[in-house]
């Protein structure tokens, strides 16, 4: 196996995990969106490296989608939305940063132990990639449960989805990768930005989901 190719793939996938950690401790929405853009750039680099070493030109499309759509258009649109709602300076913390970071480390350790132990027979490229991808997915989940703000939850979901794209590109020759990344992009653009945030904004002066919870049909 080409040693350098392997190391670079490793470096980029590991970089994605690091950026995921950076997102966890961003308390300001604008900073969070900037870090997310960086997350998408690292993903694009990682996917194009995979495209290069697997000789799979269609993966460049996935990389381009990540770069243009997730690193530029989506963060830009979200920046505009939060500015228009006047929440761009807001600070939010639900669970302490230290505690969340510790939980994140636990998740990363768990996923690496789990994946490396269980997938001994698989291709070395794929298994290391999957171990990192699972870490990114779990960190995205962690972010979704520790944040209350709709925008941060969306960012958490998008970072989770970046982890899935990383996993899909790491599995050599997997079909439908491009289609799946397109489907995810459409999903995010269409639902999240278009429908929900606008409607939630339309009805509430806050997009803090904590405020929404009072409207459950069952106040006991």
């Amino acid at each position, binding site marked *: 196996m080409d040693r350098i190719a392997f190391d670079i793939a490793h470096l980029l996938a590991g970089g994605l995990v690091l950026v995921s950690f950076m997102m966890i401790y961003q308390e300001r929405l604008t900073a969070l969106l900037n870090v997310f853009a960086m997350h998408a750039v690292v993903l694009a680099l990682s996917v194009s490296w995979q495209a290069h070493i697997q000789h799979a030109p269609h993966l460049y499309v996935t990389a381009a989608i990540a770069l243009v759509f997730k690193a530029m258009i989506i963060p830009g649109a979200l920046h505009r939305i939060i500015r228009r709602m006047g929440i761009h300076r807001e600070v939010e913390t639900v669970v302490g940063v230290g505690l969340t970071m510790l939980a994140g480390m636990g998740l990363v350790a768990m996923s690496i132990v*789990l*994946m490396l*132990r*269980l*997938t*001994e*027979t*698989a*291709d070395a490229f*794929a298994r290391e990639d*999957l171990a990192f*991808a*699972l870490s990114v*997915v779990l960190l995205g*989940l962690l972010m*979704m449960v520790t944040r209350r703000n*709709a925008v941060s*939850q969306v960012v958490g*979901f998008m970072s*989770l*989805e970046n982890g*899935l794209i990383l*996993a*899909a590109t790491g*599995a*050599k*020759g*997997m*079909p*439908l990768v491009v*289609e*799946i990344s397109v*489907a995810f992009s459409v*999903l995010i653009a269409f*639902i999240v930005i278009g*429908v*929900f945030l606008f*409607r*939630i904004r*339309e*009805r*509430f002066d806050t997009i803090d*989901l904590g405020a*929404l*919870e009072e*409207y*459950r*049909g*069952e106040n*006991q």
Partner: protein
Amino acid sequence: MNALLANPAYAILAIPAGTAVLLALLPGYRLTARLNVAASLATLIAALALFFVPRAAPRPYLLIDDLNIVFVVLNTFVGFTAAYFSASYIGHEIETGKLTAASLRFYHAMYQLMMFGMNLALLSNNIGLMWVAIEVATLTTVLMVGIYRTHAALEAAWKYFILGSVGIALALFGTILVYLAAQPVLGEGTMSMIWTNLLARAAEFDPAILNLAFVFLLLGYGTKVGLAPLHAWLPDAHAEGPTPISAVLSGLLLNVALYAVLRFKMLIATHPDAIAPGPLMVGMGLLSLIFAAFMLYRRRDIKRLFAYSSIEHMGIIVFAFGMGGPLANFAGLLHMVMHSLTKSAIFYSVGHIAQIKGTQQIDGIRGLTQSHPALGWGLALGVLAIAGMPPFGVFMSEFLIVTSTFAREPLLALLLVFGLLVAFGALILRLAGFIFGEPTGKVGPAEASLAPLYAHLALVLAAGIFLPGPVVAWFRAVAALLG
């Protein structure tokens, strides 16, 4: 056109997809509601044709076998009756101004798109395509749940969206892992994602990767089945969306997710060294059953009540499939069909009742047999059926599940019976309030469409009294297929 006639599977997919486009363009809710019903009927006829037309060989993308015919026919049948019910339901929503003509155009297009997604998921032979199809079905229902744009509807849709996306993300990770396990054996590319190929060679896959994949798939698709502890979206989505969608969610979408779990269970079960998928499913099924049974007691919203009842029944079904073996699988399959028919019938009556009373609060719904006998007795029969009273079909399937479990695992059977009794108590307690006593709230005349309600109840009753031989033979064949 010839291809459409030769293989009904194409028609089952083409009709809803084409109609969705048409409905998005056509104005006027009366016309579109009728078109929605007609298209659903055409899809049902195409699905029934699956029984008669010689079956095509599995293709890279589409597959027809004994298992999915049951699901497709059930799906299109309830899809048709729900469309019929929906046509009278939305007329009322327009009159009261809860929905506008524009949102109805959207609603009808989404309805057909959802039917397309569900049918595609059921017919697909490619695990990647199946994932995409389930995602499409989920998204369209998210949009329909939020259609009233009230605080509660938005929160419900948001919660559904977030939890559904997490579930779908975990399922995709599981799908990637299955591909990874298959790739050394079947080679790179599409070949390793075709379910029939996977099933034929699953015994040669790496068992460790398959185990991990199944855990992710069970959690991911299990979220969509509504299994505890991943069920949190389900009651909100049922309570806040339009009632036809509650009926379709409970009766169909949960089944589609269950179908995905079953396909992967069949895959894992063929591998001698992989974990047995049964115990995991039995555990999650029992947990859902007992948890939901207790949650039935403190409900104040009638649609939430029946949403928890759906969690309970999905728990029973997953439990039965987890036990496995010819008898339990047969019972699980029968219970799934009975639950779909009964629960959608209940939602049809609840939808009209809530419209008449102007509330979904249980306190506001009393004495229905006096004020609205047809609806009231329909609801009463539906609740009796879903609670598992003889002679309805649900009783028979529950009886089969309990007896087959007693023969093999008496301790588990005790837990199962405990859960069933707790749920039974809650439902009967509520039922007394609904049908007896002085009528409360508005008692205006009802313009209800009773045909779908009573058609479903008649089917459930008929199945409880006598199951025709061919149906039994078919279910037996499917039960054997499920292993």
